């Protein structure tokens, strides 16, 4: 998690740069942060890291693949709800009840809805946090990419999906908690979330998942598939002429990004203790993309740091100056996306290009 040096490095440092940065990031996240931060701040950081996990997927699908994924809130929400449903059921079971608390208040009867029942099984619930978002992404992606629906169409369809899911969740008050969502979650696989020690454990899990996914994404970027994905982004027709099916290439990126968002949503629930429609509609879905855009969509580290920075700025500044923050947020998007398409990660590159007077190449979105 260091800034990338701009001078051309010697071969040895080049080989060590990425593992070195990764090791430094790991030390900062797993060693320094837990020692330096109070319990409260560490749990805030845990929340930001969940957004960072989504950003890893965004960097893959959007930064590398050119797919503007504006519906990540859907996958975040599916993962979050799958986890929260399981935790609510275990909370209820701990007090000898069969129904979660909100269903006893607003529910339609004494019976658990049939689609809640399997989530009592921890293995099923955990699998669903990733598989459910991936399945939805695969379904939508298959239909959209196969028929070569254009970029703008895809962006709007994924937004509409986010709107539809949050409207549906709000409408099913009796079985999903409606606008409130699933709140007041007490335990995490037998550990009480009130205990700061267990909150730290949750933080470590989230930080470790983030580091693992970043390493995996980095491997994917340098693989043959990663090259192919960039090729599809830059010239889909040429890739088709070479005998590949661009639809499949895009589908993989979209589905993997959805799985990451689902995992992030699942980890968000124990970190924050709530999942609700307000966290997954159109506005938060765009928010997931914005963090990555500000940091630098094409750069993995840039996207992750951007997501953390925007989430941090959001919670610190919006409490102190709500109005000023909204203006600043808007301005940030306008400036970062409009005038610095590579995000903050590209500041160095842009400056160097200006010095050497190489014309900037327009990026295909």
């Amino acid at each position: 998690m260091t800034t990338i040096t701009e001078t051309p490095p010697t071969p040895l440092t080049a080989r060590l740069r990425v593992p070195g940065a990764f090791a430094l990031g790991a030390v900062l996240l797993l060693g320094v942060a837990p020692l330096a931060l109070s319990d409260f701040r560490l749990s805030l950081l845990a929340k930001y890291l969940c957004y960072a996990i989504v950003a890893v997927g965004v960097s893959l699908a959007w930064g590398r693949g050119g797919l503007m994924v504006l519906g990540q809130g859907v996958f975040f929400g599916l993962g979050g709800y799958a986890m929260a449903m399981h935790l609510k059921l275990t909370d209820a079971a701990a007090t000898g009840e069969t129904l979660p608390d909100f269903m006893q208040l607003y529910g339609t009867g004494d019976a658990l809805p049939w689609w809640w029942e399997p989530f009592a099984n921890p293995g099923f619930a955990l699998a669903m946090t990733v598989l459910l978002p991936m399945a939805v992404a695969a379904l939508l992606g298959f239909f959209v990419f196969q028929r070569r629906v254009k970029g703008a169409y895809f962006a709007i369809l994924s937004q509409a999906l986010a709107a539809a899911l949050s409207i549906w969740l709000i409408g099913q008050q009796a079985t999903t908690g409606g606008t409130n969502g699933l709140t007041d979650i007490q335990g995490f696989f037998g550990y009480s979330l009130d205990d700061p020690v267990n909150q730290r454990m949750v933080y470590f899990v989230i930080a470790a998942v983030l580091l693992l996914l970043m390493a995996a994404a980095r491997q994917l970027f340098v693989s043959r598939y990663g090259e192919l994905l960039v090729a599809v982004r830059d010239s889909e027709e040429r890739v088709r002429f070479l005998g590949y099916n661009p639809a499949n290439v895009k589908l993989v990126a979209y589905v993997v990004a959805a799985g990451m968002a689902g995992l992030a949503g699942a980890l968000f629930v124990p970190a924050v203790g709530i999942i609700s429609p307000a966290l997954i509609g159109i506005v938060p879905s765009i928010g997931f993309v914005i963090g990555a855009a500000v940091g630098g969509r094409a750069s993995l580290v840039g996207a992750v740091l951007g997501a953390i920075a925007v989430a941090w700025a959001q919670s610190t500044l919006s409490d102190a100056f709500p109005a000023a923050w909204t203006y600043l947020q808007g301005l940030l998007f306008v400036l970062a996306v409009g005038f610095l398409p590579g995000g903050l990660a590209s500041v160095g590159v842009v400056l160097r290009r200006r010095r050497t007077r190489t014309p900037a190449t327009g990026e295909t979105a």
Partner: protein
Amino acid sequence: MTVILNQSFTGISIGAVLLLIALGLTLTFGQMGVINMAHGEFIMTGAYTTYVLQKSISNAGVSLLVALPVAFLVAGAMGALLEWLLIRRLYTRPLDTLLVTWGVSLMLQQLARDVFGAPNVQTHAPDLLTGNISMGGVTFASSRLFILGLALLSVLALTIVLRLTPLGRRIRAVVQNRDLAEVSGIATGRVDRVTFFIGSGLAGVAGVALTLVGPIGPTMGTNYIVDAFLVVVVGGIGQLKGSVLTAFALGVLQSVLEYSTTVSVAKVIVLVAIVAFLQWRPQGLYTLRTRSLA
């Protein structure tokens, strides 16, 4: 029978609102390829314009009629300014216009909150538009009829401008082949700005109409914006008749589904129907055939 008629009228009036909102987008998104998320805030501008005018003109009917052209000009001017400041730099990156204008939309919403306050405000509908008209057991809300008329009038006006005026010819030329239009001596930059002015102005007109059916508030635009984009997507890029047909079809579908299921389930089914429809016609209902490969 009356149930069916009543439901179809509800559907048509939902369609009319959709059409009014999507009409401006047919120009800015359909013709120019700009995904303007601030379109919803231009609608909001039109609604607040009505609210402001009603404070100075006490006769609700007169203020509504005055509001229509004023809202068109105010929202249009904002659109032209946005085009000049930001969007003209982004024509090569259409998807990025979505994020940039989203930032603009956030700022405009906050501006509305600072000027008019966060709670919703109300306008008084003219007496003429508050009642219902009954015909053969079917009740039509007068305000809905007014919106339907306004939507059809706007379509007619836009069609005349696009088909019969020199400006319309230039707009179509720029859309179909920008380079060729440029070498033919058309100032494409200026045409872009005028197109954007008209598209945004139509959002303002839609905003005036919406004061008759819903509350006026800083976030009112976001409630409609995605639906409006869907109309343009399904109708076919830049196709006026596509948008008209789609708006009414989606309105009726929505209203029929809402009657037989719930609002939220209806929304989901409509979305699934749209994805299915795009399998059949990926470029939308109508497509513009050009010789360009893009």
